[in-house]
């Protein structure tokens, strides 16, 4: 792969997916500064991995695989053991009423916060599902079966409902 082709592919992939990558990074980072650093790490990893892309999957799948790997590395560095432990919901969160007057921005921030608190195994699946990925694409990114995606997604949705105090 020549440098020009690499550069073009790199810029095209980032241009098309930057908002999605920002949201993905945001679900693994504690604040916007950390998110931007993680985004930078993802960009660097993509740049380094692009010459190894052989077209076995779509470029988007390839990009999200790299992004997820970076995110896992990031939380490993942060030693976020809590994110791996069994989900223990804060009763205060369960009973937190949904404020209908919340702005769209606050609403989405609450969702991000809830996603961030999911165990990694569920967070990976729900983030990809929220980015409009189909089961088979999620399975490809994470290297798991489609039925496994379904199981994890159901668990993630149930956890999210509890965390956001929206339903049973």
């Amino acid at each position, binding site marked *: 792969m020549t440098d020009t082709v690499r550069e073009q592919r790199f810029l095209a992939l*980032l*241009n098309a997916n930057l*908002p999605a990558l*920002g949201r993905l990074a945001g679900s693994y980072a504690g604040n916007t500064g950390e998110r931007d650093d993680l985004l*930078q790490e993802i*960009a660097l990893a993509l740049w*380094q991995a692009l010459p190894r892309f052989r077209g076995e999957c779509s470029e988007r799948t390839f990009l999200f695989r790299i992004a997820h790997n970076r995110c896992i590395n990031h939380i490993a560095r942060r030693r976020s053991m809590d994110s791996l432990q069994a989900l223990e919901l804060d009763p205060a969160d369960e009973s937190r009423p949904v404020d209908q007057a919340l702005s769209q921005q606050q*609403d989405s921030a609450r969702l991000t916060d809830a996603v961030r608190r999911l165990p990694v195994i569920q967070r990976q699946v729900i983030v990809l599902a929220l980015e409009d990925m189909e089961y088979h694409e999620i399975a490809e990114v994470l290297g798991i079966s489609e039925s496994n995606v379904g199981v994890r997604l159901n668990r993630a949705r149930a956890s999210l409902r509890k965390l956001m105090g929206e339903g049973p």
Partner: protein
Amino acid sequence: MNAIPELDNLRQRWQTQSAPATDVAALRARVAADSRNNVRTLVVVALGTLAVLGFTLLRAMRSDEPNTWVSVVFVTCFAVLVWLVALVLSRGTWRPRDESIAAYIDLSIHRCRSVIFAAPIGVVFYVAGLIGSLAWRQRLLGVEWQQLLQAPEMIIAGWIGAPAYAIGMFINARVHRRRLGFLEKLRRELGED
């Protein structure tokens, strides 16, 4: 999947998040800078080794004392040994076997183990290098031990530097041991159906 109304609602809320302030051009510029820095770091370490070797060689060539060539042999062997051990320890830590998440986690685990294993070896090398340098001065240049142990460079590199280096390596190994625990647990959990 798209037919799940609850998920559609969540998607709408999820995708209204504000986009990151960083733009693609800024990311590209920082990627270029990071790539340059990675290469620079490697070059600096390699140049540092060459500088030490060159300095020892130059000193031996200028000296009338034939014993100074022993120091050239010692420094060269030591540098080769350190680089060889570093290369052996970093085997398999350069890139994942494929682009899967499992391969990346395995790579991170391998890197952590490598760092943990390298910590005591690094301390042994540091102390060995220090003792070798002192022994060479004492035996070949005839400097007294008392004088060597109280020299300013020995105070900095030995009495302060050695414990500081050992503590640094110990802390680094501890951090990586924790990270290793996390990654091993993550690998187990991600493998579960």
